[in-house]
């Protein structure tokens, strides 16, 4: 990696100041995406602003909402009895991310800010209709994810937490890339009294997306059979050496059915 300055501010205000003052300053959370990027010299920050001392960790449950602070690690989420009780799909999802080392360093805030098209959490946050809280505002999930590695975050804006409504039922199913173990197709399904939301990661050229036809059918009948006959077109899906768009389109159906079966 290239040389850079390193700061570890003690308050959110200081962190925002450091990041806003310098367009080439970058935030560091768990480093599980950012450090490999630095090692490959794909990014040349002037200053790396470590978010570790901002007190942004922890999980709180109040009524029908779960709030997870941005710097909470995947391992913490996977091990949380509250998450397991309230949003079992999310607990399971966190347990499937990367390996032990990645889960003990990587954070939910970092994953959401990064919005990797094959990352897991964006599907949960979108399906759960979550709200991303930052140092300056609240952003609904439907507006937050704006395409591959692109989000509604402004330069220097820091995610502080994510607020997730508690669904009646939830599940995550992941078809892994055999090499990287990221999602080739990951499906998060959440059933609320108001209806079903289903979000797909790994497959779309534009990153995570909701599947309107599946949602409609599942809202009427929350059972795998409800979506068995609905084909997903391959257009707009990713193709790579591991999976063609057609294969991904097919997997969306299979993985979604399995997610619903698990949740139901």
């Amino acid at each position, binding site marked *: 990696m290239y*040389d850079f300055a390193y700061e570890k501010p003690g308050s959110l205000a200081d962190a925002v100041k450091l990041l806003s003052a310098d367009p080439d300053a970058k935030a560091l959370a768990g480093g599980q995406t950012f450090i490999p990027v630095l090692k490959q010299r794909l990014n040349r920050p002037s200053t790396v602003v470590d978010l570790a001392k901002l007190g942004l960790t922890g999980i709180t449950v109040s009524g029908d909402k779960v709030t997870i602070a941005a710097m909470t690690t995947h391992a913490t989420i996977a091990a949380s009895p509250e998450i397991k009780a309230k949003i079992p799909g999310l607990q399971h999802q966190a347990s499937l991310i990367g390996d032990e080392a990645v889960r003990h360093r990587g954070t939910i805030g970092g994953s959401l800010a990064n919005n990797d098209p094959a990352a897991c959490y964006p599907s949960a946050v979108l399906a759960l209709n979550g709200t991303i809280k930052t140092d300056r505002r609240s952003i609904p999930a439907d507006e937050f994810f704006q395409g591959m590695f692109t989000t509604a975050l402004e330069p220097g804006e820091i995610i502080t937490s994510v607020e997730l409504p508690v669904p009646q039922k939830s599940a995550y199913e992941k078809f892994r890339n*055999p*090499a990287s173990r990221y999602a080739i197709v990951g499906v998060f399904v959440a059933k609320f009294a108001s209806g079903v939301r289903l979000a797909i990661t790994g497959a779309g050229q534009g990153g995570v997306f909701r599947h309107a036809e599946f949602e409609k059918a599942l809202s009427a009948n929350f059972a795998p059979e409800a979506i068995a006959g609905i084909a997903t077109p391959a257009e707009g899906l990713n193709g*790579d050496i*591991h999976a*063609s768009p057609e294969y991904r389109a097919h997997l969306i159906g*299979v993985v979604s059915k399995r997610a619903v079966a698990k949740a139901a």
Partner: protein
Amino acid sequence: MGFEGIGASVRRKEDVRFLSGRGNYTDDINRPGQLHAYIKRADRPHARIDAIDTAAAGKAPGVVRVFTGADIAAENIGGIPCGWQIHNKDGSPMAEPMHPVLAVGKVRHVGDPVAVVIADSRQAAKNAAELIEIDYTDLPAVANLTDAVAAGAPEVHDGVAGNLCYDWVIGDKAVVDGVFASAHRVVKLDLTNNRLIPNAMEPRAAIGDYDTSSGDYTLYTTSQNPHVIRLLMGAFVLHIPENKLRVVAPDVGGGFGSKIYHYAEEAIVTWTAGKVRRPVKWTAERSESFMSDAHGRDHVSTAEMAIDKDGVFLGLRITTLANMGAYLSTFAPAVPTYLYATLLAGVYKTPVIYCNVKAVFTNTVPVDAYRGAGRPEATYLLERLVDAIAYDTGIDKIELRRKNFIPADAFPYQTPVALQYDSGDYQTTLNVALQTAGWDSFEARRAEAKRRGKLRGIGISTYLEACGIAPSAVVGSLGARAGLYEVANIRVHPTGSVTVFTGTHSHGQGHETTLAQLVVDQLGVPLDQVEVVHGDTAKIPFGMGTYGSRSLAVGGSAMVKAMDKIIAKGKKIAAHLLEASVQDIEFKDNTFTVAGTDRSKTLTDVSLAAYVPHNYPIEELEPGLDETAFYDPKNFTFPGGCHIAEVEIDPETGVVEMVNFIAVDDVGRVVNPMIVEGQVQGGVAQGIGQALFESAIYDPDGQLLSGSFMDYTMPRANDIPPLSVATENTMCTHNPLGSKGCGEVGAIGSPPAVMNAVVDALKEYGVRHLEMPATAAKIWSIIQSAQPRIAAE
């Protein structure tokens, strides 16, 4: 202490240091005043170098020197040599284009070294390398075999027409064609052996050290054979005589063949250390490993078997294209010829065999031996072909194998492809494996899986390989430019402990334990008083290193010979001490005894007398108890056996799950059963990796698409089912231990077993063959395309 000799599963002596992070790998070594090298590599597969501007890099902070191919060309430095010369069918030698240490004129694969920056730190060297400006003119490139031999294909080397390194044959084509012409039936199979990237856990590294007072060079390197590197680099590349060049291969974290070869980086650090008169270190980054470690396999073949009406094999006819990559790596030409085509009889009586191999240059990383080297290619081809014969004729695949086996009473058995097998019993390994696998009750498991919505399949491979390489005169006549004997020096110290200096090299195999057990067995010295030293040309007399499962069969045999000499000398000393005649002295359990009496001397009494020769036959005998032996094997060794795999396929996704794996191997005498089991397990894991996961993928223009672990699928622990590993051994008849070798059998026998199981699972879809790796995506598309046909039926 318990039993520690041959046959004891003693724990590995080396594991304490490995498991507690106290191994001493090349990158752990730092020499005083050490500088760091960073290698600027080609980012494109094929291009002319019009100009290289290193001025800015040379002035960058921390930089000591920058060297390019032109600097090397200006010195008395040779190209990287190839260790094996193959001859074309017309008798002319293979094409052997120059393999420069740093590219001169052209780059020929992504990763080809172009320049090297020497700096205070790795970081400074890497920063400066970004400032090197290279003007390239891109040239058309070719990556895959069939493209490379097509008319009008881009030429990787000027003057190598059609990219053909050699066009080699074994067997009599006219005779074989005659057999085919009159045969009852011919079964044909086209198949590809996928290209693999070795990915040893420890990336390659090298440190060059130059002693300004003596003018001596030392190279620390991640090598499986330091003496071979000293020979190749010293004699052919840098022209440093052996007495001025020491090569040390300390702990090495996995090789699988990829650390046999002499690599440019070794010459670069050694030469530049002399130039800048300071030590120079280079350690590969993982992405450099992907594009600079020699790759493995990469064959495209057509195989045909002529059979009679009962399925008896009458003749085998094969054509193979083998990818050499852009340059010839050390062993490369031997792999698809003498380590492949000579194995095509396998365990079968096939009377006539003809094989034509064309070795082809492409704009890819050099391809060389990788765990199994040639034998996995032969085994995969043969065992897939046998299953295809069963598929086409309806003959039971077990019966087909049995009726064509070389019977246990036919040894020594001369094959039609040069090799003479010394021993084996293929019916027994087959029987034990079938029994262990519950072959006969498989259909019930298939039906049960079907009820769960899974497609279950079972596959078998009955294989043979040739290792313990190799008799020097034989390999010499086949084109090897070296002998393949092994060397052992046994030093009995004054108080009876022993140090073994072996020319083999351990990089995960556990030689420090296995070889020590030979000393326990033969000299009766306890294991904790035996030290095995390897990997240093300054300590070990000579050696050819470790590959081709040769360390025990060849290196161990050299130890036996050296210990025979120790015992012979010890008897003379004991006879003197016991005032008896030498003929009357017996040696057993660490003790020299006058036969038929209780008068004896221990080995320690004798060694003490040898080093403190006060009461000693000094007129007839030199002091000391230290003997060296060179052992040249009389033949290859021929491990073999039977592997059975069971898989379940999820028809909705195409995912293959390995659910059962049985290996019953004949590896000859087993010294440490636990280590043998571990070696077979590791080999099988690599074989499963090749069959289901691994694939080095180049785009047609030569960019490596699977250039990191994000895209190159290594098998993980949870991809490997519990492996049932057993041995049913016949002894090697021509070496003193009876050992054959176990390092490669797992990787050789398993891929066809797995693929035969996958094909069997897909039976109802009319699948006769599919190429490795059997990825989910591939299987899904096969199922997809078969659906309409099944629906129509």
